[in-house]
């Protein structure tokens, strides 16, 4: 019994260390992000880069949007892409073997006609049935292919794209009119840039007309509101902080711009759970291995708006998938971990993702169990419980409030006072309800993954 208690005591201190590291690293990342944000705020970047377009200085881009059974929204999605403020771009919609009327509606609405495929199909994907163009919109292309999933659809579109940059978006997301323009600025400012991501906003609760966001509001339901807060915090600290020190390894699947030549070199997307994460890590790995100086940028503005799950069931399912995607990707790229050759990515970002993000749920689970056991046996001091409470909950509130404050000060995604008040209240209750729920689900996802999926992955020949 004494041995058990000693073990639980050690777990308890490990948990304490974990909480301290997590909170301090998040605060550090937030501070870095805040400074970066202020630079953007004080620097009229828009002025410079709108002028770039005026002087016809830009890099043309192919926008790729896979669609599977999107018959209800596909037409308005295409229109939202057609009205982007950018001088030269190509839109490729991929009908990934939909079994509804997605293709039929596209064919009839845009009066599409078939064209020959003249590109070399270098990346592997399911068979393309036909390629269509629109007589009215010169830059609109539709690929009809057999179902193969998102990564497969994107590979097909990359093969048929004609511009040096590709932008991968989800068909159901709403892009800001200036999204591409903002993204491009990073490529023009720093020629090492191989990819950029942007902040993603949540449309739930907002007013949308004709696939255009008319009014941005924080949703009333708790589950959606928590996600708005989580996105604000996540993109602020999680992405901007890493970008500053060239440690960004994740660009959201909902919106990302990539250099096509590098994607072609690494063989395109792989069919994994976290295909976006995997893609960027492979791009970076390729650059490191070939001594290509590179960087991954992040645009502070919200470039893209998407729907988040509106019930707890869907949310937990989504997070379960994300966690498995994270573990899977880290497993595939374990050879990059703690290797100086891979710079900040190998020495800092990946270890952080492994120890804090991937193993965090297990750490929390074990920590909580140890506290309960030690408390039951009367071994834990009350001050220790206070410490855990403060680190887990109060500090969580602080991080929420700080990121909200920074957001309001610099980005102002939401302009109404009622939205701020809602978010402020959510910031206070989030660590008590939302976070524990997610951590429990992430723990289950980790547990499931370790138990079953790794065995399967080992057999994969990627």
């Amino acid at each position, binding site marked *: 019994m004494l041995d058990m208690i000693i073990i639980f005591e050690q777990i308890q201190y490990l948990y*304490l260390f974990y909480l301290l590291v997590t909170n301090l690293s998040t605060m550090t990342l937030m501070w870095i992000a805040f*400074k970066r944000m*202020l*630079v953007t705020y*004080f*620097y*009229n*970047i828009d*002025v*410079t880069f709108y*002028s*770039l377009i005026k*002087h*016809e*200085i*830009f*890099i043309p881009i192919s926008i790729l949007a896979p669609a599977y059974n999107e018959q209800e929204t596909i037409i308005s999605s295409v229109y939202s892409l057609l009205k982007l403020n950018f001088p*030269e771009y190509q839109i490729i919609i991929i009908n990934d073997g939909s079994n509804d009327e997605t293709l039929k509606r596209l064919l009839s609405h845009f009066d599409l*006609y*078939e*064209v*020959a495929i*003249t*590109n*070399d199909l270098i990346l592997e994907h399911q068979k393309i049935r036909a390629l269509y163009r629109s*007589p*009215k919109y*010169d*830059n609109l292309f539709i690929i009809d292919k057999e179902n193969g999933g998102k990564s497969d659809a994107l590979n097909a579109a990359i093969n048929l794209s*004609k511009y040096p940059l590709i932008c991968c978006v989800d068909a159901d997301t709403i892009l800001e009119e200036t999204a591409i323009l903002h993204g491009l600025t990073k*490529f*023009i*400012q*720093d*020629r*090492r840039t191989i990819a950029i991501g942007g902040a993603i906003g949540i449309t739930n609760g907002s007013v949308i007309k004709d696939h255009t966001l008319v009014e941005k509001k924080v949703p009333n339901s708790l589950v959606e509101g928590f996600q708005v807060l989580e996105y604000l915090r996540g993109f602020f600290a999680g992405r901007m902080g890493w970008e500053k020190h060239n440690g960004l390894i994740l660009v959201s699947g909902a919106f990302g711009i990539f250099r096509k030549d590098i994607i072609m070199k690494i063989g395109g997307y792989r069919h994994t759970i976290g295909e976006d994460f995997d893609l960027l890590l492979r791009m970076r790995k390729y650059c490191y291995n070939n001594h290509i*100086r590179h*960087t991954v940028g992040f645009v502070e503005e919200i470039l893209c708006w998407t729907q988040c799950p509106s019930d707890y069931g869907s949310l937990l399912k989504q997070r379960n998938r994300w966690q498995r995607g994270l573990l899977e990707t880290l497993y595939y790229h374990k050879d990059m971990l703690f290797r100086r050759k891979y710079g900040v990515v190998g020495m800092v970002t990946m270890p952080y993702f492994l120890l804090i993000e991937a193993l965090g749920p297990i750490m929390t689970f074990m920590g909580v169990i140890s506290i309960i056991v030690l408390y039951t046996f009367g071994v834990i*001091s009350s*001050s*220790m419980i*206070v*410490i855990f409470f*403060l*680190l887990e909950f*109060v*500090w969580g*509130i*602080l991080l929420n*409030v*700080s990121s*909200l*404050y920074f957001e*309001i*000060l610099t980005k102002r995604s939401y302009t109404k*006072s009622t939205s701020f008040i809602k978010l*402020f209240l959510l910031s206070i209750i989030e660590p008590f309800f939302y976070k524990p729920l997610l951590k429990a689900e992430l723990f289950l996802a980790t547990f499931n993954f370790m138990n079953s999926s790794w065995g399967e992955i080992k057999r994969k020949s990627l």
Partner: protein
Amino acid sequence: MVEVTQVLSDIVWKSTQVFFVLSLIIFVTFFIIKKILFYTNHTLSTKNIIYDNFHNIQPNTANKLDLLAYANSIGLRLLKSVNHNEAIALKESIHQTKLYTYIYKHYNTSHFSLEYLYYLNTIVLLQNEDARLLYHDILAKEHHTIVEFNILALHGLALITSAPNDVLTLHHFLTKSYKNYWISQKLATYFFVISLKKLNNSEIVHVLQRAPENSYITYGLIYALRAIKPTQEMKEKLLQLQERNAQNDVLLIAILRTFYAWKTYVPELILSSYTHENELMRIVCSKIGLDLIGRNLSHKLLIYLVDDSQYVRNNFMDALQRHQYSKEKIISELKKYYPNFYKNQPLMQWLKYYRVRATHA
């Protein structure tokens, strides 16, 4: 262990208290500031209102925020101004209000890099020639932790160009930034465009004569010429430059693209480069070759329809559509000049679906 726990507990508890109180204060302060800013017309949206109606606004020169907002607005207006008379009026207004001196004073007494950045940004917008030395100082430094300082100074320098030497100085600093800050050639081109637009034609020719050859930044300068109305002298200078550096593919690509923007036929350049082994060269020629070679020689480029590079093939196919080549004309020219192309299956497949497009992107 108990002592350690106690110390940790104290530290965390106290720091949490401080952070909590601080964030609450900040949050409340923000709302107060927001209100103040709203009522004193200094929010970003108000800045835009001033920007549109700055003629009707008399800033209170005793009020710092008032002057800063005014400086920013008038600077933005000046930057976007296309009307020469309006630009002169704006510059006069800046001169009368002594805005530059005021902002420069604040820049010099700044304490934080972000503060410097803010004032520098405003100084750039005001386009004052007195800032030249300041820009030189900034650009002469080996490294800035905030790369935007460098970009702002380059932008400022480009905006106050008044003589060929200024462009050459800009060239020098751009070369340095290209190496130290990884700026792209496109950004260099942008600054050259701003800069060249301030010069007359003979001054531009002077710049072309004196700019260092075989430099990536010079290629940016050549790209920038696309925004300038060409003269015969400029065209000749470019052709001479190409002749002197006949083996330089990158330079030739820049020159070809510039001639394309100028809508100038240079069939001899296309004929000498369209079968080049460099894929990038062929990609460029396939895209713009039809515009530069003239109709009577255009059949030469039909070879691109069976090029090994998919980008060359596709670019040329797009170019044929853009030039409204009918299917019949393509077939007749193929029969006449390249009859063996009929064995090429992908080409026949493409021709089967080919149709002239009525609209352009």
